[in-house]
């Protein structure tokens, strides 16, 4: 069943479609909306991968890390569960509910765990909790053959598979989940080993990335970020982008806007025209994190607790549209994928290359989701 080569063995340049839907008031709505949006962009995918990230979907377990796992076989499951038992309190575990449909085949074993780090182990590690969890995820993904943690945040979850995204959504019964924020991805790799783990979103902790494009800076970014404990096992652009965001935001404490200005840094000619204070800061960031500059085409939607960020490469080589209606914010590769959800919009914008569009929950809603 899983004899085909996996990402990590083969590099896959991707095209793709992306979409994101967000309620600033924190209203929870079903995954159906995301399915509807991505269905309209069917031809941007080729059936070799699709996936969703939903935020606010596990309110009853919101204090626990929700791990979603693919297993190739029971040996991998056993080994991985031993590792998880060793490092976490297991609050709950179950198979992730799926629906049999002819379009989705070759499914691995798909499991879900709600976890809390073992206090003793955590103390022993001398790491902040988030770092402890991140290192456990990287450890499993790099050392346990046949096990892949593809989602590891709190009160959020990633659902992905090999197939067209709309089929993936139905397969995971996403109409049964409700969240305040959804992102979705339809994949168009030009060559695929066809492995579920390689589909997007790619995520670490609560940060998830869907991405359209193929970055030309991949190896420069990868060889840099790997110095800081990350392992790019999937060889996908999305993976390295996720790690860079995680490093800059979680570990270095930069806000998402600054993160965006490292990944898609302003041109030197722009920096040269800034006032002295900004110039000093941008020069510092660009110089010190030079190897995190992403070149080549990309449009990404980054999901995180309480927010979404849309970002284009600095030349805007991929399409990206943002629309708003009341408290709803929509982001997609195509305007039509927004209009299909909300024909009337209050505003529609096309973010400039390198200029992030960031939306976050209203204060009250944010407190609720915490």
């Amino acid at each position, binding site marked *: 069943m899983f004899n085909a080569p996996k990402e990590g063995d083969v590099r896959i340049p*991707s095209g793709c479609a992306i979409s994101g839907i967000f309620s600033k008031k924190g209203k929870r709505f079903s995954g159906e909306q995301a399915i509807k949006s991505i269905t309209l962009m069917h031809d941007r995918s080729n059936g070799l991968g699709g996936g969703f990230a939903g935020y606010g979907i596990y309110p009853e377990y919101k204090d626990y890390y929700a791990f979603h796992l693919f297993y190739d076989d029971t040996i991998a499951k056993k080994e991985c569960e031993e590792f998880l038992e060793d490092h976490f309190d297991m609050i709950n575990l179950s198979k992730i509910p799926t629906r049999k449909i002819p379009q989705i085949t070759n499914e691995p074993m798909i499991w879900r765990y709600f976890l809390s780090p073992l206090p003793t182990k955590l103390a022993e590690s001398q790491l902040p909790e988030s770092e402890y969890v991140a290192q456990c995820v990287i450890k499993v993904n790099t050392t346990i053959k046949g096990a892949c943690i593809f989602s590891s945040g709190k009160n959020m979850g990633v659902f992905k598979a090999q197939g067209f995204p709309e089929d993936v959504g139905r397969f995971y019964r996403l109409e049964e989940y409700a969240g305040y924020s959804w992102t979705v991805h339809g994949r168009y790799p*030009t060559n695929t080993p066809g492995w579920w783990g390689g589909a997007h979103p790619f995520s670490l902790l609560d940060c998830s990335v869907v991405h359209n494009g193929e970055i030309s800076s991949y190896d420069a970014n990868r060889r*840099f970020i790997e110095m*800081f404990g990350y392992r790019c096992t999937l060889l996908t652009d999305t993976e390295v982008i996720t790690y860079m965001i995680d490093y800059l935001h979680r570990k270095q404490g930069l806000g998402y806007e600054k993160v965006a200005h490292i990944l898609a840094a302003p041109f030197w000619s722009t920096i040269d025209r800034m006032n002295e204070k900004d110039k*000093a800061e941008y020069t*510092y960031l660009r110089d*010190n994190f*030079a190897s995190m500059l992403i070149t*080549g*085409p990309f449009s990404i939607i980054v999901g995180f607790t309480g927010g979404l960020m849309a970002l284009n490469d600095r030349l805007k080589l991929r399409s990206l549209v943002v629309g708003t209606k009341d408290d709803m914010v929509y982001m997609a590769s195509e305007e039509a994928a927004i209009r299909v959800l909300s024909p009337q919009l209050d505003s529609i914008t096309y973010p400039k290359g390198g200029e992030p569009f960031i939306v976050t929950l209203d204060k009250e809603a944010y407190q609720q989701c915490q």
Partner: protein
Amino acid sequence: MSINFLQPEYEVVRNMDRCITCRVCERQCANEVHHYNADLDRMVSDDSKCVDCQRCVTLCPTNALKIVKTNNCFKENANWHTSDITDIYRQATTGGVLLGSMGTPKEYPVYWDKLLINASQVTNPSIDPLREPMETRTFLGKKDATIHYDKDGNIITKTTPQLELSTPIMFSAMSYGSISYNAHKSLAMAATKLGIYYNTGEGGLHEDFYVYGPNTIVQVASGRFGVHSDYLEAGAAIEIKMGQGAKPGIGGHLPGAKITEAVSKTRMIPQGTDAISPAPHHDIYSIEDLRQLVYMLKESTNYKKPVIVKIAAVHNVGAIASGIARCGADIIAIDGFRGGTGAAPARIRDNVGIPIELALASVDRRLREEGIRNQVSLVVGGSIRSSADVIKAIALGADACYIATSALIALGCHLCRTCHLGKCNWGIATQVPELVKRLNPAIGSEHLVNLVTAWTHEIKEMMGGMGINSIEALRGNRLMLRGVGLTEKELEILGVKHAGE
């Protein structure tokens, strides 16, 4: 004198129908090859003195001259080449170490020529440098991947001192003494115009060149020639030379004939004496000692200037570089064994050291494995012949390249490889006033500016082809390279895949 068995290497061929006996060749040849014979009313030549510098050929107004490699042949075989035989004759007659100039002429693999560059097609568009900004600005110096904030949460933007380059190319160390005043001036003027740096080498800094200080890297080598506090203050960065690619393990030697009054003043040594710098710095016998010198130089310049440590590419260079990075150097310069030299024992030049490509790849890998690659910049030199070599070096992990021989060629050098004789007909590697005058610094610097500008255009074109619009996204981006005709081991060391993979 006993016969020396040596035959002329070149023959001067003069087309008598064209020669108008204007005697230009006679005046141009510092090696005294051409003479006017009044009895015969024609020019005659002493072929044995010709070094094939092409000066007379270039300046002959009637194109009457050509220099050909002699077809007189020794009985060579696969083991004994003419050069082996003649070297033995030379040493048998002189009893001396044979000196040579410029890089090794031996046939070792040039890995640059076995690496091919990627280009985008369809899935990732190429970028047109004529329409889109294509950035080559480069900063050299220690980087900190940890952000520090002040008490108000603002980012502290102060960094260790950096060198800012408009393009990732610099002129490598060549001392005043080994090259002429005018050659130095050409380099200094061009570096200033280009927004890059040139390097004094170990000869000190002529007082006229202090004005170019902001674009000057001042070198401190084992001989400490010309090193004093004003000198250290004058440059934008200080380079400690531990080794040189053409002659790893030995020091420098500038023959007394080149130590003219001005050179002697700049170097702070007596006129006419050989300037010999030892191989080791006599206060550096360990990495800890090097650390002390690095900090001594930083201390004495108020921590305002990055310190470069230059080493030759040798075995185990990865570990050496790691030590240097940890001893406080901001930049490591690695010089490959094909690099040029004003004078080196030919046997060392031709047999000691390793190619820069392999050294660079292993240093970059080692520093990344240790998680300290960003704490030091890497500059490589040692036969960078074109913009493609620069691109390949950056993709293998360099921050910038040093060029020297290419720069001299731009000034007119014809690679006659006799710089050590001090009679460079092109006014470059000489201190003879009449010869020095032959190089006009205004024209020389224009040629250098043209060369680096042309390379930068080519770099931008190639980056655009790869879908990359900023040089930092190429740095260490080894996926942009593929090897052709390399063994598994070579590919492994270079960290690149074979073409077709």
